């Protein structure tokens, strides 16, 4: 958190140690070429078992994790996060997927991933996202924001009771702007708040998404097919 102020753009002096987990070698090499100089790739894995081993060995700051992975018990990315549970304090997971299916995305987020991006994301964007996750922030793609809004509803929380099950008015605003394609910086500008505040809101939403016992959330995700 030494250069939190530069979360949007830079932090060029620090290098983030990253493990890339994806079962397609072509995609891994493409991703390696795309990531910029802030990222230091210390390991690769192509299956659940391999990923668990490499992560335990390398203890990276960030794991770029494909949602769909062969091996293990068939749980894919979720299983990798669950298997690395003791490391969750120091290692953060950023889910990466071609699947836009809500059930997949919500499953890895609830397992403990700090964010979710689609594989079509550009090199600089994904580098930014990795740095942001390394700094302890959450990364929401427009689609994930859309899922959150769909799952939690678009009306703000009024009673303190269901604090975990609803989003506050401000969180809703942030989520809406992200869903509309705004970057954190643009959200901050639009709402006249600091980027740090935006990140706080996004992290709060992520926490709710992970902790909410809202039983509809899982049901909703399961019912929802491809988006």
């Amino acid at each position, binding site marked *: 958190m030494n250069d939190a102020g530069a979360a949007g753009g830079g932090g060029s002096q620090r290098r983030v140690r990253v493990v890339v987990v994806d079962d397609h070698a072509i995609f891994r090499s493409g991703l390696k070429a795309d990531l910029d100089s802030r990222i230091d790739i210390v390991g690769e894995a192509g299956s659940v078992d391999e990923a668990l081993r490499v992560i335990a060995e390398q203890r990276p700051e960030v794991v770029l994790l494909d949602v769909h992975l062969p091996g293990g018990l068939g749980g894919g990315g979720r299983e990798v996060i669950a298997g690395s549970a003791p490391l969750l304090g120091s290692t953060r997971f950023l889910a990466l997927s071609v699947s836009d299916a809500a059930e997949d995305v919500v499953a890895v987020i609830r397992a403990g991933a700090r964010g979710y991006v689609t594989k*079509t994301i550009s090199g600089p964007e994904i580098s930014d996202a990795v740095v942001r996750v390394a700094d302890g922030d959450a990364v929401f793609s*427009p*689609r994930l*924001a*859309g899922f959150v*809004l*769909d799952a939690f509803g*678009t*009306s703000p929380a009024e009673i303190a009771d269901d604090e975990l099950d609803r989003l506050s008015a401000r969180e809703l605003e942030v989520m*809406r702007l992200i*869903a*509309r*394609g*705004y970057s954190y910086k*643009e959200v901050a500008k*639009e*709402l*006249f708040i600091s980027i740090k505040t935006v990140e706080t809101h996004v992290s709060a939403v992520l926490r709710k998404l992970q902790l909410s016992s809202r039983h509809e959330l899982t049901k909703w995700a399961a019912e929802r*097919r*491809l*988006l």
Partner: protein
Amino acid sequence: MTSPAQRPPLFRSGDRMIAGVCSGLAAHLGWPVKYLRIGMVLASFAGGAGLMFYAWLWVLVPTADEGARRAARRPASPIAPAVSSPLPTPNGPAPAGAPPSARPAVPWFSGRRFQYGKELLLGAGLIFVAGILIARQLGVDVPLGTLIPAAAILGGAAIAWMQLDETRRAGLVDKTKADQAGGWVRLAAGLALVVAGVLVMVSGSGSWEQTWLALLASVAVLGGVVLVLLPWGLKFWRDLETERSGRVRETERAEIAAHLHDSVLQTLALIQRRAGSEQDVVRLARAQERELRGWLYRDQAADSGQLADRIKAVAAEVEDTQGHVVDVVSVGDTVMGERHEALVQAAREAMLNAARHGGGTVSVYLETSDTGSEIFVKDRGAGFDLEAVPKDRLGVRESIIGRMKRHGGTAAISSGPSGTEVRLSLPAAGPDERNGEGRP
């Protein structure tokens, strides 16, 4: 005499003396009832032939009601209704409950030939038997000892084969297999007849004791053979099953391969040829991705009548024509109404503008709630000044702002150096303005 084609079907009549046989027959043949009755009585004195004939018809000929019910119950094949239709008539099948006289005439040769095949065969067989009996009466020596076993074999085989045919037909008509037990009984009866016939023929004697012993022995042999062959048969059956499921998988695979060939491989070939043009490559890849997703998840975007699907379809179209990625995120959904079509068209115009002038990825966000629908179209282009757009350019002014106003909605455009965003809002009902998401 009337031709068979005009003849009404044979039913026992409701206008009756005893069982309605005579009047039914009269209606069928077109003869006066009186003559038939007299003839029947006279025939009864000839060794009781008339009585026999009457009783036979009584048992076998249905009443009009029964006939109609039976015709209605006969299942029609879903695969080939023309083949299994109980009454293949040129005027279409008669309604099941119609009185028999209302039934359209049935052409003898085309329709009835196969239905009566069994009866004709039976008749021929009976005539043959009668001929043999008469010949015996006249003193001709008929080798009954060979004829009876031969007849038994023929009959048994016929019964068994009929069963085969029947099950196949039943399989076509419906898979309930309700009368499978009957089928087994028939098969067993046919088999027993054939075995008995063969035995009698081979042993060449009518002696019961010998036949009985031979029967026992043969059953034992048959049992042994079954015991030996059963594992073989089961294995064969299982092999057949695996082979069949393998073929099903093969077909599936072939379908996937065909689809991949038609779409993905073609697109990859195109991409290789156009590798120089980044825009073309992106467009091709996106279009292929969309198509493949649609195929994999059966996500038919077209014509579902939902707003979100319409917006996605429009976005796909813009993506194809403009070569820029259009990302759609939707929250909530609603059934398309007339006013929603205006919203879709305005959104389409906004997407086109964004793709044309903005460049880069176009973000579309659709939110539908009880209060209405909102669409945000955002690009990351250089932006433009709405006031600076010439008055004669209809694009933004007419197709977006004007169109939304006409349908009771609003449109706002904010443009800056980091991009342009078009906000369209359509209240659910009535033109009452939402004040949630206006300009900040």
